[in-house]
């Protein structure tokens, strides 16, 4: 489980809680399961929502105190930046570089997993970082292309980014020559079929 109480915006889409309205739970309030209970206070409604955070940050080990999702996202971003620094440092060793970059890709997947409480613009950037990370299997990246990942991560560190900031970040990746349309490039090889199973059309 990994969900937050959300309200709807004018378009009927989920609207996220404002992080300013969120306070941390007292330290050490671990859940009986593997995660941690973090208590949120939505001041506009005065309601209390509890969220079970089951994802470990990086190592899978329990942090000593409960932390807010905001901090988790910052931590992942900071780890991802460090990994890109490492990639740049060992750039000439292709195997070591790819191994490190695959850990970076995992961090971006972790960020994507936290998307529920972020705005649409932040989600857009993370989705395109995911595409760019996966695309590294098809395209060998130059140093400056790895650097574009770092620049983007630094720009989204404030999390509550605007539409213009998101566009700027996505363009930055695309302008570095990373193919962001790769998910639909192989369309000639695919089709979609819906098959009837046990008489029920799915």
């Amino acid at each position, binding site marked *: 489980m990994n969900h937050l109480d959300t309200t709807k915006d004018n378009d009927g889409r989920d609207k996220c809680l404002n992080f300013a309205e969120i306070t941390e739970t007292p330290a050490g309030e671990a859940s009986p399961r593997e995660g941690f209970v973090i208590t949120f206070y939505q001041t506009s409604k005065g309601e209390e929502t509890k969220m079970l955070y089951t994802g470990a940050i990086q190592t899978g080990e329990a942090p000593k105190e409960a932390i807010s999702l905001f901090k988790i996202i910052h931590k992942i971003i900071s780890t991802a930046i460090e990994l890109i620094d490492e990639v740049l440092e060992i750039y000439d060793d292709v195997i070591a570089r790819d191994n490190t970059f695959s850990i970076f890709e995992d961090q971006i997947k972790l960020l994507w997993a936290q998307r529920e409480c972020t705005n649409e613009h932040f989600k857009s950037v993370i989705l395109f970082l995911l595409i760019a990370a996966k695309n590294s299997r098809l395209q060998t990246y130059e140093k400056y292309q790895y650097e574009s990942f770092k620049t983007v991560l630094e720009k989204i560190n404030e999390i509550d980014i605007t539409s213009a900031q998101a566009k700027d970040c*996505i363009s930055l990746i695309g302008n570095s020559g990373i193919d962001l*349309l790769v998910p639909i490039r192989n369309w000639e090889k695919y089709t979609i079929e819906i098959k009837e199973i046990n008489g029920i059309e799915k």
Partner: protein
Amino acid sequence: MESKNKVFLETTIQITRRSGDLERKEKIEKFIIQYQKRITSSYVKMEFKRRYIGDLVYLFNLISDADNFCDVYDKLKILPPVQHRRISGILGSFGHFFLDIKDNKTTQSIGDYLLEAGYIFFKNAIELSWQDFDKNIDNILDETDCLNAKSGPVLKKARFYNQLSCKQNGKVCKMKEFVLKNREFLKKIYDKLSHIENLDDEQKKTKGIVEGALKYPQNMANYKNCSSCGDVIISLECPEDTEIFTTNTKHFSPICEAIGKIVVSGELGN
């Protein structure tokens, strides 16, 4: 390698640069880099908007309206076979790519996940593709003053509008003037097409439109007419010292032969 002079990127090339597989994309980029200058036109941009952007907008709006992923697929069933093949292929390729990224730990259904990722991906892909049309292009010719190329798709309340209208705020394009200026070349093209046996359906349609344009040039400032003879218009607007780069050599070769233009396919032709 000796650098060639100028190349005109026709619509099929501009689309394949974005939607072709990696091999074809790389072939195009390697081919066009041989030229000192890369040219295209506002008319090509209109065709790009109608065809490629149109497909992405169609998919985005389906995804945006859908309550589940099957709804999106069900809507595709109404499409004619060629469009159905293309749109379901795009959707299939997208699904394959994103299912590989899906976090299995979350409780979100695959359908909901694809709708969410699809909404974000196609929204941004439309904007990126429209902006990128001009990428690595030295000059965009605008002899036809195609109004549809002046503005891109517009997002209003989770729906893209990709309108194609030849009359905007009382303005009309310069297609009529373009046809009058190129009347002699149009005659040559008409003669050439008249002497080819076994024209395919599209070529027959083109021939009919050219015939109509010679008689009633004023009718050409009309989206329905001009979009039915795009190959002719593009061949005419390509400058004499410039080679036309296309994957559609079958349709472009006879037209260009009639007016002394050179067609190149970079091993991508049909």
